[in-house]
């Protein structure tokens, strides 16, 4: 029997990996995957905390988050594809038309 706190610790680790991924990587697709990792870290935390709190709120929250994440994927990939069509390259370093 693993205590809930281990799951929370794991979710914190996953969240941190996601944050580092977004900050360090330059490919929008990989940054986007890192963001998904952050969302799923939150899901894991919700489930673990829900078990500790003894109510279903946490588990139910996960369903909503998964639905929203799916919508986000649809919109996000569409935007990334649009930029790729215009640029033929995929790196956020290219997004420098506007600065300061």
């Amino acid at each position, binding site marked *: 029997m693993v205590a809930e706190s281990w799951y929370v610790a794991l979710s914190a680790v996953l969240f941190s990996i996601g944050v580092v991924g977004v900050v360090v990587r330059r490919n929008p697709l990989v940054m986007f995957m890192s963001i998904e990792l952050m969302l799923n*870290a939150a899901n894991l*935390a919700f489930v673990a905390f829900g078990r500790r709190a003894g109510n279903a709120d946490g588990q139910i929250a996960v369903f909503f988050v998964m639905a929203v994440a799916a919508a986000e994927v649809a919109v996000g990939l569409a935007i990334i594809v649009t930029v790729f069509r215009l640029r033929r390259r995929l790196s*956020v370093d290219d997004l420098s038309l506007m600065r300061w």
Partner: protein
Amino acid sequence: MTPLAMPPVAIGPLAPVLIVLGAAGLVLLLDLLPRPVGRELIATVALAGLVGALLATLARWGKPGRAFQDMLVLDDFALFANVVICYAAALVVMLSIDYLGRNGPETGEYYALVLFSTGGMMLLAAAGDLIVLFLALELMSLSLYVLAGLFKRELAASEASMKYFILGAFATSFLLYGIALIYGATGTTNLDRIAAAAAGRAHDPLLVIGLGLLLVGFGFKISSVPFHMWAPDVYQGAPTSVTALIATGSKAAALAALIRVLVTALRGSQPDWAVLLWVVAAITMTVGNVVAIAQSNLKRLLAYSSIAHVGYMLIGVVAGGSAGPGAVLFYLLTYAFTTAGAFGVLTLCERAQAEAVEVGDYAGLARRHPVLAAALGLFLLSLVGIPPLAGFVGKFYLFAAAVRAGYLWLAVIGVVNSALAAYYYLRVVVFMYMREPEGAGARLVPSFAGGLALAIALIGIVLLGVIPAPFADLAQAAVAPLLR
């Protein structure tokens, strides 16, 4: 096996949102008809939906309602925010008719997306539960990401869309993890129950970290420093009418939700977040104003100006009590009128084959089109905060609330910043009135709907500036239910 008990469904408090979302569905259907209907008709349906929602909101004034086990709290606070949001969205739709006709694709989904994001904003202001808050925020944001990249053949628009999306989704993940931690600390996502569970344990590490992550997420959405980097690029690259919606509606909704969460659920941690927001408010005002001075692109200038205005509004959040949030609500109203108007003038001006967004394009505008020049001048003066326009009264209430709550230095920083801001706003006025146009300046093509929208905004800022007391009292009264 016992039958499932159906929870009571209260449609009444949902009516304003349902009207907006219903209109969005109708717009989508109209757009799908085999024989295409005119864009004007689609815009009219969208406008009718927003005006209907505005009327439904006003009809519910003073009759607070809750729906779905307190997931949705439509009290006077939410109603006041809804008025600001519907108003801003209606102005945006009126300004879009003409603007899209010249620049945009021949599609109705633009209006559907505007309505969906407006519905999200209204839900956001009324969210009584952190999960609903998350859903509403995403409904608003996902629609806005698409709207920002609406001109998908333009590099600047798709770049703005991509930046907005990546940074916005990044911020939302922080917000969501913050919600998860707050749920872990209190065992509930309902704002009232969080307040009860958190009482007396303000220094629970889970709660403190959760609050911090939540503030990071909100900081992105209201574009406060240090999470403001997306705002100038998105404001510049997005279609101007969409920029107006991002600058007014989404900001008003996010600030309303921020106030509701801080004042109701996390009131026990008030000393913690007040100190943090004090610093954020001071830096946000200063960075926004100082960087705005160096801008030559008017959309970018207004972006930095809007960052500075978020700083002013955070003063009211820090001041707390009943005066602070009330002053923020009133400021949101004046800010929505003024900013929607200023962006409105921008949507009506165009250069050959392009938008007129450089300050130089507006040189000598007063001679070619005195009415529009005067309108833009008044909006800018209201943003500076010159009496008797609305911006002055809004700032006055904010600074007064800060002084009364003992935050004298914050008010001083605010006043110094307002003086600083006068420089870059007045520079545009000087260009309009005292410079000769260089080559072919901005051409003006005002339409009936656009002119009407500007007239409403102008009447708004003058009315709020001359007789502010009744509206300010309404804003104060609207905050009362949060403080119980």
